[in-house]
């Protein structure tokens, strides 16, 4: 999967009215500005432009996606910019985002110190109510530490790593998971009328992102695999064998919320299947200043009252 330069264009002909359309080379679909026909661009398949293997179709309509964004704007903190709640959502685009659906056999070698707790009765000296030194006993919990090392083998599946340079992997993770039971083999009918992109990240970059995500999942899994009452110094190294990466188109609603005409818009992503929403809500410094002033005033009032009472 070689990245196609986003600034390159290609000229295609509308099959309905014959108009010549100039579209970015990474686009898999186009809409004719003259007759509004949806056109599917079928590029030559090859190593530099792979055909998607799978796609997940949109199941969230535009109105439902708008409702998700409105709900997201309402649930932001009180310091979020107030314009978020009133911003227009007219520019909302349904976009098939390319991603790598990664899976592998993960073999992990781990080592850790495992703690097994036990109790002992301990004798100690203390002073009683009469000031005399007395001997007492108490139950104390101690930990017996054992070194443990071993192997762990599992399949890592359902790892999604972005293949679009415009949507970072951590942003995509915020709207995951996608229901992969509804995965279907890619066919142009699914993307007809929607914007669909080719990968703009190199396959090696996508695989590296996916491996990192898979390593993180192993790191989350291993602590629960450890025996004992507690553990520490857990170290591991994972080898990924027989890796696979399938190019998959994910349904994402994208909108740029223009909350303030003087400032750049905020991008909000909505999972086109589940409605999970993410975005970087802008902070209203005016609200922060007001909150800070009110807090300072209350604090000052308390100080004055305390000073007067003394």
């Amino acid at each position, binding site marked *: 999967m070689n990245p196609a330069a986003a600034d390159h264009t290609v000229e295609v002909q509308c099959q309905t009215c014959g108009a010549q359309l100039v579209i970015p080379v990474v686009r898999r679909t*186009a809409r004719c500005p003259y007759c509004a026909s949806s056109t599917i661009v079928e590029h030559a398949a090859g190593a530099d432009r792979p055909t998607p293997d799978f796609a997940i179709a949109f199941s969230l309509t535009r109105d439902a996606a708008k409702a998700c964004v409105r709900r997201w704007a309402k649930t932001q903190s009180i310091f979020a910019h107030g314009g978020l709640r009133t911003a227009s959502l007219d520019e909302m685009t349904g976009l098939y985002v390319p991603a790598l659906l990664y899976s592998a056999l993960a073999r992990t070698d781990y080592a850790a110190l495992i703690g097994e707790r036990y109790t002992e009765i301990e004798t100690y000296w203390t002073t009683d109510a009469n000031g005399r030194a007395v001997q007492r006993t108490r139950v104390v919990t101690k930990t017996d530490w054992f070194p443990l090392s071993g192997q762990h083998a599992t399949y890592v599946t359902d790892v999604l790593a972005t293949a679009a340079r415009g949507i970072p992997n951590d942003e995509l993770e915020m709207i995951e998971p996608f229901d992969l039971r509804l995965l*279907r083999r890619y066919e142009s009918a699914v993307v007809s009328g929607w914007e669909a992109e080719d990968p703009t990240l190199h396959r090696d970059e996508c695989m590296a992102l996916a491996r990192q995500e898979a390593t993180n999942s192993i790191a989350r899994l291993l602590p629960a695999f450890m025996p004992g009452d507690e553990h520490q110094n857990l170290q591991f190294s994972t080898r990924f064998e027989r890796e696979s990466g399938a190019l998959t188109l994910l349904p994402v609603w994208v909108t740029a919320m223009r909350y303030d005409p003087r400032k750049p818009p905020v991008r909000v992503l909505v999972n086109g299947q589940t409605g999970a929403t993410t975005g970087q809500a802008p902070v209203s410094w005016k609200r922060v200043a007001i909150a800070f002033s009110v807090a300072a005033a209350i604090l000052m009032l308390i100080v004055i009252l305390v000073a007067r009472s003394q």
Partner: protein
Amino acid sequence: MSADTRCERCGSPLEVHDLRCAVCAWPSPAQAHGQTGVPATRVLRCDACGAAVEYAADTGAPRCGFCGAVTRLEELVDPLEQAESFLPFRVDAEGARRALSAWLSSLGWFRPSDLVTGATVQLLRPLWWVGWLVDATVEASWTADSDSGARYAAWAPHAGTCPLSFSRMLIPATRGLSMAECQQLAPRFDMALDGAERSGPDDAIVEQFDVQRSGARLMVMDIIRRQAADIVTRQAIPGTRFRNLHVEVLLQGLTTRRVALPTYVMAYSYKKRQYRVLVHGQDVSGVFGSAPYSLTKIAAVAATSLGALGVAAIIALNSGGDETDRQPTATTTSNATVATQTPDAGALVDAGGVAVGTAPAPGDAGTAPSLQWCAAGLRRGETLCGGSPPRATPRTRWWCFDGAVGSAGTVATCAVNARVCNAARASTGLNGTSACVARRAITLPTARGTQ
């Protein structure tokens, strides 16, 4: 994709229409897409009006914006599957009836005497019930705490990996039979005989799988995982006790075959009540089901047992007496005191009334295992008498004293009560250096044994 296509990662077969391997998620080979040469464009046309159509999220399919026609896409395939192999019936209907009669007559004395003659077969239905025949290899990695290697704590951690192999493991998929019934029937099937042809009674019915393919795969994999964990528990973990078991299972080469297994489902009535019985379709000795009990016989046995118990209790009460009424005779030796008389015909009992030893014959001290009185609750090096009495119950309380208060020595004598003890103490001249205290009686391995 052909039916024998296998996953390149785990070796499990891929079914037609599988997008990914159900075990390890390896993507199945895709069809060739795209064209060569310059980019081409294509417009998806409405079959009804010819207008360009777009995919609509609300219909889940392309829909024409002009006439509203919806173009159906290929549906995701998740079928209800059918049995592909049938094990033949080897028992006919008459054989099943005879098997039922033989089983009823073999149930034992507590069943009604006329069960065989009084039972009437109400239903005899040959049935092929369904299940999955599974082959798989498993690499199980595990961790656990066990008592093996424990130091200060009761547990020590362990980890390991072990290869497991499942061959022709039968996993029931039937809803008509219970899991317990399937487990009883399964070992008696000759799995080598399975074939695509049905061989059995004409009226035999075939149960249907009622789980879709995806659900069935999850069920099979879950059962294999649990089986693997069970084998790890029994075979891999050292020690006698364990806890915190974690098992990670790596399935490889999972092959499942859907098989139909022959069984007769029968119902018979006895005195207006119906009972269900399963007769194995290949082995007449495999009969499982319910049968009535004879309440008269059970009541008679219970009454007899109660009567016998009552008689035994009366005898025990008459033979036993107040402890203070019994006067054991003790022979004092240099190192140990050996009782020559025991409270209950030579049997000693602990606090719960359980016999803990037998009094030896006089003169056996030093050779045969013998009794050491009054030492229970003491540890090595503690004095036998003279300290605070350990836990003692009235039933097992004995009185004793040793040669000198505070010294780690042997018991000078034992007595059933304080009065007898003090009298014995006075007679031995130890009145000023010892004290009578209550102890329990225990058995030591030899006359010279210590706690």
